[in-house]
């Protein structure tokens, strides 16, 4: 596939912390990590999804002024960013593995509508639903 969505970014409070979370706790891989002065373009990728990158961006200069960056950090910390969904083969197994690694779950796995879902947050406050793919 050569057309479609390539990168979607999240705002995170600290890129090193986010990188450790998404790589070590969730099992993503680093795709690109490039710095240019204060700016750092950092994307990670799900191992099964090579056509998509998840950007982990820190709001701040030189792209954003300090006031805007502060507002964005507050919005992220309040959990007010849009929903994110991670599809998994087996929600309970993924839950056990991620929990053992210290992921902050907001909802334990729950049977609903013929599938299983759980909820977790990244350190910054971005909220994920983890939903077992229907077989």
């Amino acid at each position, binding site marked *: 596939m050569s057309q479609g969505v390539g990168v979607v970014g999240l705002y995170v409070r600290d890129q090193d912390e986010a990188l450790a979370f998404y790589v070590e706790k969730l099992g993503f891989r680093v795709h690109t990590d490039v710095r240019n002065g204060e700016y750092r373009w950092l994307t990670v990728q799900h191992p099964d999804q090579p056509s998509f990158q998840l950007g982990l961006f820190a709001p701040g200069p030189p792209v954003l002024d300090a006031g805007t960056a502060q507002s964005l950090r507050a919005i*992220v910390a309040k*959990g007010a960013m849009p929903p994110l969904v991670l599809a998994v083969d087996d929600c309970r197994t993924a839950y056990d593995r991620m929990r053992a690694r210290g992921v902050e779950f*907001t909802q334990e796995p729950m049977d609903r509508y013929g599938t299983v879902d759980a909820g977790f947050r990244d350190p910054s406050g971005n909220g994920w639903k983890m939903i077992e793919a229907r077989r």
Partner: protein
Amino acid sequence: MFCEVDYLPASQDPELLRRLLRAKDRMDANSHEAWPVRRLARVSGVSEAHFARSFKQAFGVPPHRYLLTRRIERVMALLRDTDLSITEIAFQAGWESLGTFGRTVRDVTSESPGAIRARWRVTARELGRVPACFVSAAHRPHLTMAVSEKRRRAGGGIKGVRSAQEVR
């Protein structure tokens, strides 16, 4: 003295907000449990005095009212998705008295639990492609004022259309 909200001071510390979010998440996960301020403050690692004010500033509603919106949302989901009796739903959602439950649901939604269930039985479907938790959130009541205040206004003659609008 500033009364209630309207005047909002400069933005809150994101680190505090993240900890307040943790208390909100805990209410979300277990809305049927009792959540006195002391318990919530402990989750957030702030003093009780600081907690209620900070929570309201962050999320726009006092913590107990936020909890009520989540309980009502749960009630709506249980009415819609299960065949549990209304008594069972009341207890599962965290009410200890059926009378208080029925009155609160009517005050917030302008409908009785039985009427809500009957209406959904008719409309349902169509939402199958939206993840369940977001469907549920769509039915969370928007409580812009305390339920006691809604009740007072409804009782004071501001009935019908106007009070129905205030709920939504």
